[in-house]
């Protein structure tokens, strides 16, 4: 796909840590409205790829473009978030000494400057939106609880809720099903499919059942570059993929 018509465009991206190449000439394109699953063994560079997209890590070389022509390598985390890229971390990261409600309120799309927040009064529309999200992530009954007191799975969901509250164009979701029960994993897959109806989503996941239930195009990463791409059945049939990943 050409850069101009893509939502996210990575070309020849390399990142090394002390000589170790975490990303090695990685190229990847996500189209508008697309949902993509990324799989790969531990250490393949999946999280590092998200770090590069969200401005946490600067690539040593290569191009990263959002929305066709916005160069992300020159932006910092806050402006990339403002451009419309939201991220869920591998280790669920919510604001533990805030309530579930406040976590969502903080994430809600609204002016982000200190003076705007100082005089901010929550509007009816914002309350409705939070109510809607609470319902969606099934934490309605926990709205007043501190996020610290949620279970691991609930934190994952809260973080997905926060991601939605930001209303980004592109969601990067890093291992959403980690530490979840099978039932929770299935629910999470449903939730993500729902979200994918009106957002572009990149999901990193290990769980094959989960990836299969998403039913989307899969990219296999290995040692910092793309090993194979296509439907899950297609990549599963690839000998190299079987060797480095599925075979284990």
């Amino acid at each position: 796909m050409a850069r101009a018509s893509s939502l996210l465009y990575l070309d020849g991206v390399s990142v090394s840590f002390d000589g170790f190449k975490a990303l090695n000439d990685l190229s990847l394109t996500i189209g508008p409205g697309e949902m993509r699953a990324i799989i790969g063994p531990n250490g393949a560079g999946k999280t590092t790829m998200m770090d590069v997209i969200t401005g946490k890590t600067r690539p040593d070389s290569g191009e990263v473009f959002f929305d066709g022509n916005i160069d992300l390598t020159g932006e910092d985390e806050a402006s990339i978030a403002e451009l419309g890229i939201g991220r869920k971390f591998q280790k669920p990261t919510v604001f533990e000494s805030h309530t579930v409600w406040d976590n969502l309120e903080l994430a809600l799309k609204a002016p982000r400057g200190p003076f705007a927040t100082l005089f901010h009064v929550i509007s009816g529309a914002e309350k409705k939106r939070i109510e809607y999200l609470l319902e969606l992530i099934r934490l309605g009954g926990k709205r007043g609880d501190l996020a610290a007191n949620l279970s691991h799975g609930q934190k994952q969901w809260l973080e997905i809720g926060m991601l939605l509250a930001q209303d980004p164009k592109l969601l990067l979701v890093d291992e959403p099903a980690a530490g979840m029960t099978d039932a929770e994993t299935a629910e999470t897959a449903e939730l993500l499919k729902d979200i994918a109806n009106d957002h572009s989503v990149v999901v990193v996941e290990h769980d094959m059942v989960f990836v299969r239930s998403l039913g989307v195009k899969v990219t296999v990463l290995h040692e910092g570059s793309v090993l194979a791409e296509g439907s899950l059945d297609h990549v599963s049939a690839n000998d190299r993929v079987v060797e480095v990943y599925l075979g284990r």
Partner: protein
Amino acid sequence: MMTSFLFRAMDTRAGIFLAIMAAAIILVPAGNLLAPEGSAFHVPNYAVTLMGKYLTYALLALAVDLVWGYCGILSLGHAAFFALGGYAMGMYLMRQIGTRGVYGDPNLPDFMVFLNWQELPWYWYGFDMFWFAALMVLLVPGFLAFVFGWFAFRSRVTGVYLSIITQALTYALLLAFFRNDMGFGGNNGLTDFKDILGFDIQADTTRAGLFAASGIALVLCFIVCRALTRSKLGKVLVAVRDAESRTRFLGYRVEHYKLFVWTLSAMMAGIAGALYVPQVGIINPGEFAPANSIEVVIWVAVGGRGTLVGAVLGAVLVNFAKTWFTGALPDIWLFALGGLFVFVTLFLPKGIVGTVSQGWTALRQRKASAAYESGSGDPPSAPPQSPGAPANVKHSNRAPVTAEPQPAE
């Protein structure tokens, strides 16, 4: 907009605090000026000044709590902003001496005559006017904090490194102000003040007035801090404290938030210093001593970090103890202070106010569940949550999960 902003500042705890402050602001001066000596209600002069001094310390502690308790910036240099505010006020008081100095020079303070200076340095211009000095009390600490914060926060200096450079800042100022050629009285600092706004600085009424002014300044700054920490901005600050990197990924420009509270806090410290100087009658470079800033942090830790009221309580209690110790057992004080800090860190990590309010919440929870079990009352609801939850307070009586700051992966 403004009313809702201030309305947020109020709740029971704030109400109790403000009521106590109002009583003190009225009763202490009244007891000093109106009650005859020997009466049980008489407040002696020394006590008025002492308590006035405590109130300025309390304001300094409040400023530290705003940045440390809510935003996680452990400042070990806030005494620098306090001392700068104090020097700005001291310069005004020096200029009020006029010809009443030892050398009787109408234009130059005594120490400049002593150093054989011929004219007033340019940076002393304007300090003969109160409004100008008052403005400088805010602007000088505010400007220094802004410049310092601009570089530190933009370069993402955090944690211990930031604390160390705040110590370096106050130490550098200490050395600079010791020098005679800086033009701030060197070693001896500024003293021998005569009057303030035309009132004799030694008069009982002036002292009572300064006490009341300190109390009012504390109340106003408390209300500002309260409204601020309970606003959405306050929630962002706590978010920064607990998971700074996560906050950035939500699109908040963390450095702007830090710079805002940091500068505001420095200005409050400046006000505290300006009220401190006329009450103690002197300002010298000793106020910049790195140990002073560390002491303030201990006051806040003792009272309860991230509670505002706790900062005030901690400052007053520790300084009251200090006054008592330095009178009765002067050699012991530093050990007592160190011991207190160790005790609080180990056994009261939430400080006095944090521990009490946690106990209070737990008690109410238990009562509610007891009532529910005995068949009356509604099911116990979740404990009330304050938006700017005190640092590390665990509200839950269920899973004991610690709200530790965690880096975003």
